[in-house]
């Protein structure tokens, strides 16, 4: 079959060394675990030996109990669910708007001259400066949090998408012209796929900012969510709660980024780039 024969093409040299390569890959991935494991052992022993107070720095073993507790009561899943939903909604709104505005700014010099200076100015505002204003305007329920997350997700997606569109190869645009593509068709068939690599860079940094802004929003006014868990831990003097919340946030951030990364690899398999190592 033509499909299988072409699929082998780029990896023809590696096919024979398949087994040893798999071991190499495993070994390389295992290498990343060395430092965290050493740190965990150090952490546990430092607290057990009484060098650091267990009250301030609960050892990993105690954190496992806290996590199990939160899991058994189901509370942690409630917090994760609420936070994840906020990120999903806020990120979708922010990235969606960035796609529309970015396409307009990237494709039209006139729109760029009109809008880009304003966006550059707004981008310079530190994220936390929005919080009091959003609280004043939108109250303390969901809307200010989602707005803040959307603002956070908007700018990286917007900037990268505009850059991606403006860097599309003129020669490929001309190919679209030869085939009579204009307007929306030219955008979806030439500009969008050609700027997809940049767009994914933007989406991934937008997503990580969305998690950051989520915590900022939930730290200030929330009754549920991982940011609330952080505040709760601080107010009740439970460092274990704070650390558990931090770890869960890290895991969720990594998980959502891996999801985008997986999507990126699938959609951008056509790229002819240096970093095409097997993963």
């Amino acid at each position: 079959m033509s499909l299988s024969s072409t699929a082998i093409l780029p990896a023809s040299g590696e096919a024979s060394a398949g087994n040893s390569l798999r071991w190499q890959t495993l070994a390389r991935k295992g290498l990343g675990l060395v430092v965290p494991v050493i740190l965990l052992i150090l952490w546990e022993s430092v607290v057990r030996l009484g060098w650091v107070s267990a009250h301030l720095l609960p050892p990993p073993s105690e954190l496992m109990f806290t996590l199990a507790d939160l899991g058994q009561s189901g509370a942690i899943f409630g917090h994760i669910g609420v936070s994840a939903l906020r990120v999903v909604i806020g990120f979708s709104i922010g990235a969606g708007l960035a796609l529309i505005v970015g396409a307009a700014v990237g494709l039209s010099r006139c729109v760029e001259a009109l809008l880009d200076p304003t966006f550059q100015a707004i981008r310079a505002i530190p994220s936390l400066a929005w919080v009091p204003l959003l609280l004043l305007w939108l109250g303390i329920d969901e809307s200010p949090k989602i707005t803040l997350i959307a603002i956070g997700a908007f700018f990286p997606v917007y900037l990268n998408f505009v850059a991606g569109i403006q860097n599309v190869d003129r020669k490929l645009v001309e190919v679209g012209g030869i085939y009579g593509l204009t307007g929306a068709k030219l955008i979806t068939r030439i500009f969008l796929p050609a700027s997809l690599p940049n767009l994914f860079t933007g989406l991934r940094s937008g997503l990580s900012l969305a998690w950051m802004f989520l915590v900022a929003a939930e730290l200030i006014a929330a009754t549920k969510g991982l940011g609330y868990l952080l505040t709760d831990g601080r107010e009740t003097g439970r460092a274990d709660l704070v650390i558990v919340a931090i770890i869960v946030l890290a895991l969720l951030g990594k998980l959502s980024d891996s999801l985008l990364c997986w999507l990126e690899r699938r959609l951008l398999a056509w790229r002819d780039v240096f970093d095409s190592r097997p993963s």
Partner: protein
Amino acid sequence: MSKSLLELAVKAKDFQTHHVIDNVEFSIDQGQVVSLVGPSGCGKSTLLRIIAGLDADYQGEVRVKGEKPRLHSRDVGFIFQEPRLLPWLTVAENVGFDLGRAGGKHPRVHELLAEVGLADFANAYPKQLSGGMAQRAAIARGLFTQPALLLLDEPFSAVDAFTRMRLQDLLLSITSHHDTTLLMVTHDVNESAYLSDRVVVMASRPGRISGEIEVGLPRPRDRHNPQLTHRAADILNLLNGGQPESLVVSENPEQSVSSREPLFISRFNFAH
């Protein structure tokens, strides 16, 4: 007599204050292979862009099948100097690009890919192709819309000499099979003589026609045919501003061969 497929009369074309084309006129009949040869900056590629409808800012009249050139004309296909395959589409999807997303599944895509010898690469991405293979895919894409007139802008200048010869023969066989008319811009004097029925030679500053050579040899042609070498020498002479030595076309070598020794020119390079 049938009407010409292409009638071109560009009075003037200016880039800002720069006068690029001055009074260029020629026409091409159905089924002919015509080359445009000239030094860099003589406006050859600009003429192709005008015919393709990519450039509408000129004075004069251009008619393809009696109609003004426009983008996305069914009658005109374009093959660029580089393959310009869209890297995010498979080879088959590139060839069938005209039909949209499902274009790669059209039966003609696979016929064309078989013709250019890429049947096994239908589902490959352009990054997996060599330069010559990519240009073959681009030829298949140019022919997919079944244009009456195929425009080629130095289509083989980016491939090695051996690949170039194979691509030239491939182009001739495919276009005669599809009864396509060719207008090709080239820098290669030998290529123009080998491929064309007529060679339009242009001069620069401003771009104008300095003469036309009728090659008039039957196909398939032998690359070492002395007559072909003489045509190439004539073309080169015209390019250099001299007088053509044998504008009279004849199948009889004695009549058209001049007294000069045949010139063996490999690839004439106009780059400054």
